[in-house]
C-alpha cells in the first residue's frame, strides 16, 4: 500500500512531511522527484519527520514523499561478502557504474546482484517441517564461506515445494512453506530484514573463547572475546584505524564486517585494495572473501552515517545465524553519535551533554547489546564481536561518547597520544587499558596455549606497573641511584615494552603473531628476568649483565624468529644461561 505526503519543510537532512497521518515510524520513504531514500524517524500529530539518506539540495516544499509502508531494511542473501556498500546497503560499485567517480543522488541500485546465479544445494525435502531460522539450502558464497539459506524468522511450517539442486538467482523461489492454515510463503535465496530490529536467536551462551588478533598486547594483556564488546578510543593519529585494520586482517573470526562510518575515503580504498590482495594466514583464502565493507565516509550524507551502523550489525547477525563467528568494526562510533547529534539539533530536541541527545546512551547500549555468543534458532553456535573506535574531541576521554561507551564494553584499549608521538605502536596504554574477559578466558588460555599463560600475563602486568611507579622516582633523580633489583625491573620492563608490546604492523613477520609465539616471548623475557635476579643475588651489579648485551639481544627476537621456528626459543634460553654463567664466572675469577 502506497502512502503519500508532501514536504512541509527542509532543514539539512531533516524533512518534515505534512498532509499525511499514515506514515509509520521507521518506514522507508522516497522523497521528491528524484526519489531520494529516507526513513521516518518521528511521527508527531501533524508532521512526520523524515531523515534523508542523500543530499537534500534542490528539494522543494510540496514535493511528494511516498512510503510503501515497509520498514527501512537490508537485503540478506549471497553476494554480501566481498562487497562494498554505502550506509544503506547500496553497492558502491553499482553506483559507480551508474554515476561515475562522483556519487549522484536518487540512484536506484539493487543491494545484491540480481543476475548472478548461485550454485545451490538443497538440504530439506518436501514434507519436512521447518521453523524460522532453519537452514534449508546452501551455496558457496566465496571459496571460504558457505552461505546457508535460512527460513526468515517468523515463518514456519511444512515444506510444500523445494526446488532441485541447481543454479538460482537471489530472487528465484527455491521453496514454499505452508503453515497450519495452509498459507504458503515463498522462500528465496534472499530476504529483507529491518535494520533497527535485532534478529532473534534461541539462547545467549556465555563467553567461552578469545577472539585472537595476532596483536600481542591485545591477545595477552587485554583479550577480546568472541561475542564480546571492545572499544578503541584515542585522539587523531593514535592508531584507531590501524588497530581496526589489523584486527580485520588477522583476527580469527570467520567473517568481518567493516564499517567506515564518517571517516576517510582513502582508508576504505586502502582496505579494498589490500584485502583483495592479502590472504588469510589460516585458510590461505583472500581476506576479501570473508569481508564485507560498509563505507559511509565523512563527506557522504550524514543521515546515512547514522544508518550505516545498523546496516552493518544486521548483516553481522545474518551470518551469525548461519553459525559463523563475526567480528564487526565500526570506525568511528563517534561519527555516528555526531550524526545523531546533528539530526537531533535540527529537530530542536533538548540537548544533554555537549549537544548530544539524551538518548545517546540508550542507543549505544542497544548497539553493543547486539553483540553476543549465541545459539541460533536452528541450533548453530555463532557470535558477534563488536569493536568500536571512539574519537573523543580533543583526545579527552571524559567526553560523553567515550564515557557512555565505557559502560557497555568490556575490553577497553586506551590509545595514548604520548605513545603515538614516540611512535610506540600500537599506542595502547598498558596502564589504563583493561579487559574484563581476561578472567573468563583464563581456562581457555591454560588449556589451549600453556598452563603458565595467565601466570606470565600477571607477572608482565606487575612488572609494567612497578616500572611506572619507579619512573616517578627516576623522573626526579635519574635511574643511577636506584638499587640494582629496581634497575633490573626497569631493564626487564624496557624489554617488555620495546620487545613485546611494541609491534610493527608493517613488518612481514611482526604484523601477525600466533598466540604460541606470544606466550614464548613472554616466557623468555621472564626467564631472563629470573636468571638475572639470581645473578644479582650473588652481589653482582646489574651493569655487568647489561654490558653482555643479553637484554638487547632479546628485543629483536620478534623480527628474527618467525612462527615456524619456535624451537629457536630453546636456543635463546641457552644463550641467557651462558651470559649469566659467564658474568658469574668472571666475578669468581676477580674474587680469587
Amino acid at each position: 500500500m502506497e502512502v503519500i505526503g508532501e514536504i512541509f519543510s527542509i532543514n539539512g537532512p531533516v524533512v518534515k512531511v505534512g498532509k499525511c497521518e499514515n506514515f509509520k515510524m521507521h518506514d522507508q520513504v522516497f522523497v521528491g522527484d528524484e526519489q531520494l531514500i529516507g526513513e521516518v524517524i518521528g511521527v508527531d500529530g501533524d508532521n512526520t519527520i523524515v531523515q534523508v539518506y542523500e543530499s537534500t539540495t534542490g528539494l522543494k516544499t510540496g514535493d511528494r514523499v511516498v512510503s510503501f509502508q515497509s520498514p527501512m531494511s537490508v537485503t540478506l542473501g549471497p553476494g554480501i561478502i566481498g562487497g562494498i556498500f554505502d550506509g544503506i546497503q547500496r553497492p558502491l560499485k553499482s553506483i559507480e557504474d551508474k554515476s561515475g567517480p562522483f556519487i549522484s543522488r536518487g540512484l536506484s541500485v539493487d543491494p545484491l546482484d540480481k543476475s548472478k546465479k548461485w550454485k545451490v544445494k538443497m538440504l530439506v525435502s518436501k514434507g519436512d517441517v521447518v521453523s524460522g531460522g532453519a537452514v534449508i539450502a546452501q551455496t558457496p558464497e566465496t571459496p571460504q564461506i558457505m552461505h546457508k539459506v535460512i527460513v526468515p524468522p517468523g515463518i514456519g511450517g511444512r515444506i510444500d515445494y523445494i526446488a532441485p539442486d541447481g543454479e538460482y538467482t537471489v530472487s528465484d523461489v527455491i521453496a514454499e512453506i505452508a503453515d497450519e492454515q495452509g498459507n504458503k510463503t515463498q522462500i528465496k535465496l534472499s530476504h529483507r530484514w529491518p535494520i533497527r530490529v535485532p534478529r532473534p536467536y534461541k539462547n545467549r551462551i556465555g563467553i567461552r573463547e578469545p577472539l585472537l588478533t595476532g596483536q600481542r598486547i591485545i591477545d595477552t594483556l587485554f583479550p577480546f572475546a568472541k561475542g564480546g564488546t571492545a572499544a578503541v578510543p584515542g585522539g587523531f593519529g593514535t592508531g584507531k584505524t590501524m588497530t581496526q585494520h589489523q584486527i580485520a586482517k588477522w583476527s580469527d573470526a570467520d567473517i568481518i564486517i567493516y564499517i567506515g562510518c564518517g571517516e576517510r575515503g582513502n582508508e576504505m580504498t586502502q582496505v579494498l585494495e589490500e584485502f583483495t590482495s592479502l590472504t588469510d594466514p589460516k585458510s590461505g583464502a583472500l581476506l576479501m572473501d570473508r569481508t564485507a565493507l560498509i563505507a559511509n565516509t565523512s563527506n557522504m550524507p550524514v543521515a546515512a552515517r547514522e544508518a550505516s551502523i545498523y546496516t552493518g550489525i544486521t548483516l553481522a547477525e545474518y551470518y551469525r545465524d548461519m553459525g559463523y563467528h563475526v567480528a564487526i568494526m565500526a570506525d568511528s562510533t563517534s561519527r555516528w553519535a555526531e550524526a545523531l547529534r546533528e539530526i537531533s539539533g535540527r529537530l530542536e530536541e533538548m540537548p544533554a551533554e555537549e549537544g548530544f541527545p539524551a538518548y545517546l546512551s540508550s542507543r549505544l547500549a542497544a548497539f553493543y547489546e547486539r553483540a553476543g555468543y549465541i545459539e541460533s534458532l536452528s541450533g548453530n553456535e555463532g557470535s558477534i564481536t563488536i569493536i568500536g573506535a571512539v574519537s573523543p574531541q580533543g583526545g579527552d576521554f571524559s567526553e560523553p561518547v567515550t564515557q557512555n561507551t565505557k559502560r557497555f564494553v568490556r575490553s577497553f584499549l586506551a590509545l595514548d597520544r604520548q605513545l603515538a608521538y614516540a611512535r610506540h605502536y600500537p599506542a595502547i596504554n598498558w596502564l589504563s587499558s583493561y579487559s574484563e574477559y581476561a578472567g573468563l578466558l583464563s581456562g581457555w588460555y591454560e588449556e589451549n596455549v600453556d598452563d603458565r599463560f595467565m601466570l606470565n600475563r600477571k607477572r608482565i602486568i606487575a612488572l609494567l606497573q612497578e616500572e611506572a611507579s619507579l619512573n616517578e622516582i627516576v623522573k626526579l633523580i635519574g635511574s643511577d641511584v636506584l638499587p640494582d633489583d629496581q634497575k633490573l625491573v626497569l631493564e626487564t620492563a624496557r624489554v617488555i615494552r620495546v620487545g613485546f608490546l611494541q609491534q610493527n604492523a608493517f613488518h612481514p613477520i611482526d604484523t601477525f603473531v600466533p598466540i604460541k609465539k606470544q606466550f614464548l616471548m613472554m616466557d623468555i623475557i621472564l626467564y631472563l628476568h629470573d636468571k638475572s635476579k639470581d645473578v644479582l643475588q650473588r652481589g653482582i651489579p646489574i651493569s655487568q649483565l647489561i654490558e653482555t648485551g643479553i637484554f638487547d639481544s632479546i628485543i629483536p627476537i620478534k623480527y628474527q624468529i618467525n612462527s615456524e621456528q619456535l624451537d629457536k626459543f630453546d636456543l635463546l634460553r641457552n644463550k641467557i644461561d651462558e651470559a649469566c654463567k659467564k658474568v658469574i664466572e668472571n666475578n669468581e675469577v676477580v674474587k680469587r
Partner: protein
Amino acid sequence: MKMEYMGLKSISGSLVILQGIKEASFEEIVEIKTDEGDVRIGKIIELAKDYTVVQVYEGTHGLSLKNTVTRPSGKPMEFGVSREILGRVFDGAGRPIDGLGAIFAEEYLDVNGKPINPVSRRYPRDYIQTGISSIDALITLIRGQKLPIFSGNGLPHDELAIQIASQAKIQDADSENFAIVFCAMGVSKDVADFFRKSFEESGVLGRVAMFLNLSSDPVGERIVAPRCALTAAEYLAFEQNMHILVILTDMTSYAEALREISSSQNEIPSRKGYPGYLYSDLASLYERAGMLHGREGSITQIPILTMPNDDITHPIPDLTGYITEGQIVLERSLYQRGIYPPISILPSLSRLMKDGIGEGYTREDHPDLANQLFAAYSNVQDVRSLASVIGEDELSETDKKYMRFGEQFEKEFITQSFDENRDISQTLETGWNLLRILPRSELTRIDTKILEKYYPRDEG
C-alpha cells in the same frame, strides 16, 4: 519564469527570512537586490511552507525590510570553469577581480561538488619531494594527500607553504600539467600579497588560480570561497589531467565564519560554540583531495590553520586532524629559538607515508630510519626534562649522547633555510649521521639487516 519577491520578514546577522516564496528549492542561490540597486547573492539554508531562511554571502548591511527584492535562481551556487582560470584572481564567490574581464566558461559546476565514491579513488602512493628534510624523511608528503599545517599566529606557515609549493617535485608533473589553486579566507591583504609575490618570483603566477576572501571581505563569502577553489581544482585535476596543489588559508577564519552563521541561526552549538556539523562541513572540503581511477590528475591539499592559543585540542585543529591525512605542526618555542622551519616533529604525522616510502619508492632504510629518529627524539624530551632536574652532568653516558643527538638533530636536520632544497638521499644520510651519535644498542626500531648495512660509518 523567474519570480521576484519584494520585502523581507526579518534580518538577523547574515541571514534574512522571507515569507511567501513559492517554487524555491533547498540550497538554491537567490539574488538579492538592495535599495541602492546592487545585487548580492545568498543561499536558501532552511525552507518551509511558511518561511524561507537565506544566508546572504556579502552580508546584510544596508538591506531594508521593505524594499529588498529577492529572486531565486533555481540553481545551486555554480562556478564557470575553463583552463583560462589559471593566472586569474577571483573573489570568494568566484567572480574575477583582476580587471581582466569575464572568464569564458566551458561549463558551470556546482561548487558543492559531489562526494567521491570510495571505490573510484586511487590510493595515493607517490611521494612528493619537498626538499625539506623534516618533511621528506618524517612527514612525507604524498601526491593526492591532504596534509595541513597546524600553526599559530605569527609563525612562518606562509613561508613554509611557499617553500613546499616552489620546491615540490611531483612525479609526472612538469610545468605543463602542474598548477596551484590558492584560496585565502579571512587573511590580511599582506598575506595574500606575500603569496602573490612569491608565486611571481618563482615564475609560476601564470599557473595559479587565486581565490581571495580577505579579512575585510564579507564573511558569508568565506564559506563559498574554498568551494569555488576546490571546484576549480577538481576541474583541472580530473577533467584536464593536471596535478594540482591546493593551498587553503586560513581554515580557522573559515570555521569562525561558519560559527558566526550558525549562531545567527540559533543553532545548538557543540564545543566552543562551533556547530555540531563542523566536522562534516570540514570533511566536505578536505575530502575533495585525492586521485581517481582512470584520471591522471591529482589534488594535493595543504590547508593552513592557526591554532587558537597554540592549542592543538581546539575544535578546529582537532576536527581537522580527524579528517586530514596527517598534519605538520609548527611550534612556537622552536621558532623563538631561531629554528626554521619550526616543525615539531613528534605531533606531526603523515598517514600516507607508510605506503609511499621504502624500497621501490624512496629507499629501503627510510621507514626504519624515520621510526628511529622519532623514537630517539622523543626520548630526548625525557632526557631534557631529567637534565633540568638533576643537571646535565649527572646524566648517564647514554643520556648525554641523547642530549647531543637532540641538539644536532634540531640544528642540522630540522633547520634549513627558506631556499635550501635537499634531495632525499642527502636527507636520509644526515639522519644516519645523527643516529651514529647514539650507541648501536639504542637503535631498537631498526631491523637488524638495515642496521648492519647503514649504521657503520661510511669508509672515506
